[in-house]
């Protein structure tokens, strides 16, 4: 039982409508019933309706596992970083602080860290993860790279992220605007400083032809409204 290599997870924040179907569905899981392992946040609700769903990115070299003093976090051969193993986890919270994506959560009542394991109970037996199955705008998508290429001609997947000096590669992909040239890299640190406008929120994608020039609709559509 493992997740087939040709099936990948794609997150397309530009498509997220913030409905929380993923969060509600995640909490139905038999392995963490009642708790959702997905983080869904508004970027800045006062300024935009843009929301971002965050699942575990399943890093090639998981920082959470590297900092775990009890060796409780394992990455299986299919590239899935599993939730903490109960007999080992000492609920120290190192992983919670170290994860660049802010994914693991400490469940103090149970004295364990829990996080998204890409619905291992489903994906390892050929099903799609619950969140990507229900997501009504398919901001969360699970399938082949070819399917994604056919469905989203205007964007492309990247799995490389810059956090300060740390570059991270992940099994999970994020969709970014398609540009000519090499695969782009998302500079998360730089993006933290961007202020959203009512219409657009842009990822800081670094790479050829990816200037941060404003796009139509960036301005305030209500500028002329008198009250």
């Amino acid at each position, binding site marked *: 039982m493992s997740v087939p290599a040709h099936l990948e997870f794609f997150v397309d924040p*530009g*498509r997220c*409508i*913030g*409905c*929380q*179907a993923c*969060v*509600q*569905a995640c*909490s*139905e899981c*038999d*392995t963490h*019933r*009642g708790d959702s392992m997905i983080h869904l946040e508004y970027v800045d*609700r*006062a*300024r*935009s*309706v*843009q929301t971002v769903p965050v699942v575990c990115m399943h890093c090639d070299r998981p920082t959470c596992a590297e900092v775990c003093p009890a060796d409780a976090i394992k990455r299986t051969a299919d590239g899935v970083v599993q939730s903490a193993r109960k007999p080992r986890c000492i609920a120290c919270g190192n992983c919670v602080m170290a994860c660049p994506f802010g994914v693991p959560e400490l469940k103090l009542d149970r004295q364990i860290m829990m996080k998204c394991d890409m619905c291992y109970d489903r994906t390892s037996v050929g099903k*799609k993860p*619950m969140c990507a*199955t*229900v*997501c*009504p*705008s*398919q901001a969360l998508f699970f399938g082949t790279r070819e399917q994604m290429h056919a*469905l*989203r*001609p*205007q964007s492309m997947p990247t799995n490389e992220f810059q956090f300060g000096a740390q570059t991270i590669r992940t099994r999970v992909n994020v969709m970014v605007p398609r540009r000519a040239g090499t695969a782009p890299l998302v500079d998360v640190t730089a993006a933290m400083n961007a202020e959203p406008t*009512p*219409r*657009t929120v842009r990822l800081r994608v670094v790479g050829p032809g990816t200037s941060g020039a404003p796009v*139509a*609709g960036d301005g*305030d*559509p*209500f500028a*002329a*409204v*008198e*009250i």
Partner: protein
Amino acid sequence: MATLPVDELHITKVFGPHLSASVRGSTLDEPERLVKTHCCFCGQQCGIQLKVRQNEVIGFEPREDFPFNRGMLCPKGVKRYLQGSHQDRLTRAFRRDPSADGGFSPLPYDEAIAVVGREIGRLQEKYGNAAVGVLGGASLTTEKTYLLGKFARTCLKTPFIDYNGRLCMVSAGAANKKAFGIDRTTSPWSDMVGTDVIWVAGSNVAECSPITTNYIWQAREFGARVIVQDPRITPVARTCDLYLPVRPGRDAALFAGVLAIMIDEGWIDRDFIDRHTVGFEQVAEYCREWPLARTAELTGVPPRSIERAAELWGTAKSSFFFHARGIEHHSNGVQNSLGTINLVLASGRIGKPKSGYGTIVGQANGQGGREHGQKCDQLPGWRDISNPEHRKYVASVWGVDEKDLPGPGVDAYELFRKIDRGEIKGLIAICFNPKVSLPDNQFVTRALEKLEFFVAIDFFLSDTARHADIVLPGSLQEEDEGTVTQVEGRVIKINKAVDCPGEARQDWRIIQDVARALGRPKGFTFEAPREIFEELRRASKGGVADYSGITYEKIERQNGVFWPCYDADPRTGEPTPDHAGTPRLFEPGSYNPVAKGSGPFYFPDGKARFNVAEYRPAVDDVSDDYPLFLTTGRVVSQFLSGTQTRRIGPLVKQYPEPRLEMHPRLAEKLGIADGEWATCETRRGAITVRAMVVTTIRPDTVFVPYHWGGEKSVNRLTVAAQDPISKIPQYKVCGCRVRRADGPPEYAAVLEPQQ
């Protein structure tokens, strides 16, 4: 005697809304079976599988084989299963009893039915048949809506039946009837992917019909330009290509202004207009009254955006136009809808692949529920109760004399005015919570209190059912089978997952029990929904909404059947048992029984109608005293009046209480900060809720969602103005004023979020 038996808080303590747990059962509970069915909430009718164990729904599994949603669900669909086995579920009949805890005491079901029979009979004997009214709903299966219409007309013999689709679908329905002669969206949603332009007018798609977002955005991936017309930057507006920030209540003017530009620029399909339509010249003449500057001035949409809309729409090769309650919930709702249809007809892009038009229905059976006779002016098959031929046909199916069929009744709001005037003394209501959902709902409450006898059929004690003399325990969607017709016009099958608990009964059985108790059981002896459907097939045959060729088996086999579906070729009368239905309307060369081959539209000449879609100012528009626009709508985690969703814990947690959305510029002017209590006041009343300060709404407009009752109900503020044709209430605009509240409202200390 339909006053509240005890005060609201005491009723709530016993009957809820209480919150369900966040999940059900333990992880060790393996389901015994999965039941393929559909969600109980909105008109998208997503396929879903319910996990069943020991006559209880314990969870869900996505249903990826249903082509419309392929497993996708919104949070309501995910958590809908928690409405079953709920502590508030009515499992017995109740009678009003001020001495009882919670104001109601249980009584045996048979006794309750006997009381209903006796009281309804007494009222009809004393005041006449028309002294009893019936209210239905568009979340009922088509079988139930059909039976309810038949029950009102042949058992009660009252003209006064109407339904909560009056709050929902009627503006679009009336416009469709005037323009096309048929009332259905033209195309399956899959047609949308590959189109050039999609115009979404007055529809918060992401929250009210979430699955549709994926279709729109998939079309966008393949090059479609998306135009969104809304006073709020909703999630689909966030990434659209052209945002039209229209002032509430000005939609018809915007459509006229856009069409004026299209005509000037020659961006219209003259050939299509000449060959397939009538009435264009009058519309063109009216549009000349809307030059760019005037249109921009009135609608609040910048001139360049109006020009851009005309260009995008006018020069497209294929297109879809969608609208929903945002332009329909107006005293000008039919005109607004006709304005959109004029843009579609002028473009000539209808009746072909990748081009369509439709209204996004709100309720589960918003489509089917408006076709088969619970509407006050209608008989099954979308027939007209005033048409002698239609009456004769349906009377023959029902085995009654045509002369005994009552004529048209009145709309749901007028029905309450009749109660208020003492003309209607008794009421039977199911699937309708007018105390929350109708505008100016304190009037509705006063009217309810005047009823001599009120019986409510409900599964939870809704805000309205609290006024009932007798409450009969009805069925949840998963406790019965039947059909509904979803947003695309696809007839689908709801399958039973569990039995009704306790003495609760399937709604159609209850209606028949009442008929029996009245001593008028003729025509109400069905043993199963399938039998009702078989009669409905015959009753709809030959009507525009012809279901004669649809069977439960065909629905299962095809994963739905688009009506009209004929059991005999309307041209030749030859049996057509394999007729697959009609996914796309108005295709060139298509035959329909009204046009009889003269054209694709449902009029004798086969041509579509342009209708002058006139702008008229809203009733109770903004004024010096009430300078801000108040508009209302939904949030994604709640549904309609909240009778179900305010009882589902995780959905309440997601968006616990109504908030007043306002722009920071307005908030600053009023001295209100995000999260502070704000009072919104109109000529009808005032409510105090917390402010939500966001840049995603017009600065001259405030928005409050409508899912709550009592002190939190925005429908205390809305105006009971109605469209003259469709009678839809004007929920989407009225003048209001807002001020910082002096402190928390009294309810804040006593009411739970869901109340």
